[in-house]
């Protein structure tokens, strides 16, 4: 697992900026203001360019140590092995605590825009337990960050907490992405409840060229859904929110975390989605991330994914027949029947992903998404084992 | 052609229910209903020689029981039915034709 934050050595920083790590290419392209860039002196090409380049008004320098930075200029040195940061990344420096955090990683499969720690649901398996804090300041910081993200970044995920709690702030962020990153797909993870009353979904109509909403639904009736999200009235709000988003011509994905009570009614949920929400463009069936609140509810939630196979197969088959795209997330191939492998995606963010020692022998390891870095034995299927051979020559 | 007679307790079933149930048989049978305070006598006479009579009495009784359930459902849902349809169509009605889109 790769840490996203580390203690660093730094000096001469007057404030806590967001900085774009830059090399020669970034300098030449001129996509970002030099004053926002951190010139990476660890890079051989940059060093080969000679001392003249350092005289430009860079925000500061990224070095191996204090001696390598030009005198009287701000610098940062990352201790050996602490933290991976490269050209193209965006970092946030907090000089008063000497900490640096990664806010955007070039080339990563899951860069996020973290909007708030607040949430209006309290899901039993929440991987990001909410906190009641006033973090409205994030909106401006995100708008700033968006300005430093590569124009060719394929996608960004807007997440939290619950992004719609920002109200107009969310609209600002989406608008900023539309302006600064028109070629970047934006996927917003939200429970959609606010659109069931409170926020008009139409404020997002036509706002962004490539925007999708990922909205969880856990049951075909309120008793189950409200229990999972620990919030009375949530189902009703989310469902009404889905209709409001559809009326605002939004693209919608339904996300289902495969905790045991949900799996027990999964085929009914699939039927419910088809009958009532046929405009849904994608359904993501996701194995639980064993972190956060999930850990406290193991007994209520855990189901060995291998035992889910028949129900998964039925749900996937049904949704596919109805022409609704389906994907399986966070499930290693060995716990799935081969007929479902085509639906499995490598979904775990690179920085929190790992393979187990058993995987070394597995012939389909490259295709498999592996495991969460924080998986423990009790959150691992009994059926994990390397695949020795497959029935299809292609694989 | 034999006429089937079915006796139904008037204390349990209303005339509407018996009539509705019996109405279903008017394709293949001539239907006659005689009512008294105690009961209804429903007489079914097959219209054609090949009329199926073997389980007609049982079927009619089933239908009467079903009509009773229907009456119960109707009494409970009549109002919300109208309200739901009105709510649904309020947004779905077409624009006046010929006056542009």
């Amino acid at each position, binding site marked *: 697992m790769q840490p996203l934050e580390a203690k660093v050595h730094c000096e001469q920083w007057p404030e806590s900026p967001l900085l774009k790590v830059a090399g020669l290419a970034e300098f030449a392209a001129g996509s970002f203001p030099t004053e926002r860039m951190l010139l990476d002196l660890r890079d051989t090409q940059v060093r080969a360019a000679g001392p003249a380049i350092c005289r430009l008004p860079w925000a500061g320098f990224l070095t191996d140590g204090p001696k390598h930075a030009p005198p009287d200029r701000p610098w940062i040195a990352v201790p050996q092995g602490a933290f991976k940061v490269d050209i193209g990344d965006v970092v946030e420096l907090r000089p008063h605590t000497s900490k640096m955090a990664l806010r955007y990683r070039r080339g990563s499969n899951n860069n996020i825009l973290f909007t708030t720690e607040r949430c209006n649901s309290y899901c039993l398996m929440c991987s990001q337990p909410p906190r009641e804090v006033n973090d409205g300041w994030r909106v401006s910081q995100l708008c700033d960050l968006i300005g430093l993200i590569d124009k060719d970044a394929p996608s960004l995920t807007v997440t939290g907490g619950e992004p719609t709690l920002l109200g107009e702030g969310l609209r600002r962020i989406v608008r900023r992405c539309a302006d600064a990153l028109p070629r970047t797909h934006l996927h917003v993870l939200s429970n959609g409840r606010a659109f069931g009353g409170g926020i008009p979904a139409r404020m997002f109509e036509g706002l962004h060229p490539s925007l999708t909403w990922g909205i969880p639904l856990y049951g075909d009736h309120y008793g189950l859904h409200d*229990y999972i999200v620990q919030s*009375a009235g949530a189902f009703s709000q989310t469902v009404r929110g889905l209709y409001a988003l559809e009326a605002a011509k939004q693209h919608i994905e339904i996300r289902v975390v495969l905790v045991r009570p949900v799996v027990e009614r999964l085929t009914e949920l699939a039927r419910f989605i088809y009958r*009532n*929400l046929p405009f849904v463009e994608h359904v993501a069936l996701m194995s639980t991330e064993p972190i956060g609140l999930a850990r406290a509810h193991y007994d209520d939630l855990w189901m060995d994914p291998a035992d889910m196979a028949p129900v998964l197969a039925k749900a996937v088959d049904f949704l596919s*027949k109805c022409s609704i795209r389906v994907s399986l997330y966070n499930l290693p191939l060995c716990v799935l029947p081969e007929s479902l492998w085509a639906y499995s995606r490598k979904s775990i963010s690179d920085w929190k992903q790992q393979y187990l020692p058993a995987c070394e022998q597995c012939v389909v390891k490259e295709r498999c998404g592996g495991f969460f870095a924080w998986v423990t034995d009790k959150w691992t299927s009994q059926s994990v084992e390397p695949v020795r051979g497959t029935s299809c020559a292609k694989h | 052609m034999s006429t089937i007679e079915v006796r139904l307790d008037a204390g349990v079933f209303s005339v509407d229910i018996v009539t509705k149930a019996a109405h279903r048989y*008017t*394709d293949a049978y001539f239907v006659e209903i005689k009512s008294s305070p105690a009961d209804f006598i429903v007489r079914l006479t097959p219209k054609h020689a090949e009329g199926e009579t073997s389980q007609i009495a049982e079927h009619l009784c089933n239908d009467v029981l079903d009509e009773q359930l229907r009456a119960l*459902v109707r009494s409970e849902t009549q109002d919300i039915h109208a309200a739901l349809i009105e709510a649904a*169509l309020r947004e779905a009605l077409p624009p006046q*034709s010929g006056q542009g889109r």
Partner: protein
Amino acid sequence: MKFAARHTFVGNPGYRLLPLRFRRLPWDQGRVLVTSMSGDWLIVQRNDFERAVTGQLDPSEPLFADMESRFLISADPERATLAPLLSQYRTRKDYLAEGPRLHIFVVSLRCHHTCAYCQVSRQVIGQTTFDMAESTARHAVDRLFDWPAKTLTIEFQGGEPLLRFDRVRQLTELIEQRNRTEKRTLRFVIASTLHDLTDEQLPFMRDHGFELSTSLDGPEWLHNLNRPRPERDSYRRTVNGIERGRRMLGDDAVSALTTLTRRSLEVPKEIIDEYRKLGFHSISLRPLSPYGFARKTGARHSYTIADFLKFYEAALDHLLQVNREGYFLEETYTRMLLSLLLTPFSHGYVDLRSPTGAGLGAVVYDYDGRVYPSDEARMLAAMGDHSFALGRVDESVETWISSPSMQRILGAGVAEALPTCADCAYVPLCGADPIDHYARQGDSLGHRPTSDFCRKQMRLFDTLLQRWEQGSSVDRDILESWALRATRREGVLEAA
């Protein structure tokens, strides 16, 4: 943070019934089909259903959730939402939103054939008084664009429309020219025998994206028997037309329908095999209706709905077998009924709708300038009964809508309001056909126990539901593949 147990999310105890209807399964009297207001459904044991209706269900039962999720019951109103039920209902009825999409232009009554069952009362070749005049054509085009539908299907019919292809060409060009400003989506269909297709007609049809709909009654001997031409070679000419049509416009652009005569009913397998032989993937098995010459020659050629239903069962068996062998072949009406049972969507056919499709879903512009809400109404008029004529092409659309004919249609055109239909479990999926009931029973409201329309519909729904419910998984897959597959064929109804 304290977490609440599942039972605390039930809310206020108890539940209420939502509008629902039910029907005992003919093949299992101990179970009932229960349908919601929008046509979602559940099959339940009758005694469980009775418990549900009398308020005895327990929230912890799976049946409770099953009925809740289909909007047959509703629990705590503070926590439940009926928005999906409304959405389902609107989706089912969404054809109402835009007014008629199907517009039939009868360019000529003339035809080569002398089919005994002909619904059209065709005239002999050579009499141009039975062709659509230019002024009529121009008025009809104006009226066409007075309707609001964003997609317009224009279907040319006759007689044999190819006999007045110049009029077909002119109408197409007028419509497309006008559409440059209107910007609707247009679909052109021609219902024709495809006999004597000329080298001039085919390229025109290709250039304007025409779809061809023709009649193919079955193997050569049956087709020629049903469709006499003086030359006795109707089949050969039809097949020739199909081949030429496919070559010029693509396989997907050519479809065929049968008309079933009494003789046809004896040979369901042969008819289906003929369609397979000619490479069709869609067949339409339509029973005769009591119009046109069919009524006059009734006794000799007619058959009962019971006869048709027997034929249908055999045909369905054979279709399933063909599909099991790996050849995809669907029947269009079956597909429509299955889509009603298995999907939440409305379908494109005008003939099974409530409110009725007559006038609301389709308009017919006759050769003589009279306008009708459906083909059936036109046929009645040809037999002397103008009860359902809407008016003339030179009148306004508003006049038609407010005409006594339209009022008569609407008065009997909502199945949910008709006696017996109102309580039927299938009514959310079914339709009203006031004109058909008028033609068969003399009264647009109709009497359901003796109604052929009702008998046919109920039996077909029952049959398909039973086949789906009790069929092997292979058969279920086949039935679902018909229902769930997207199709271009909606709205194409008639062929010469």
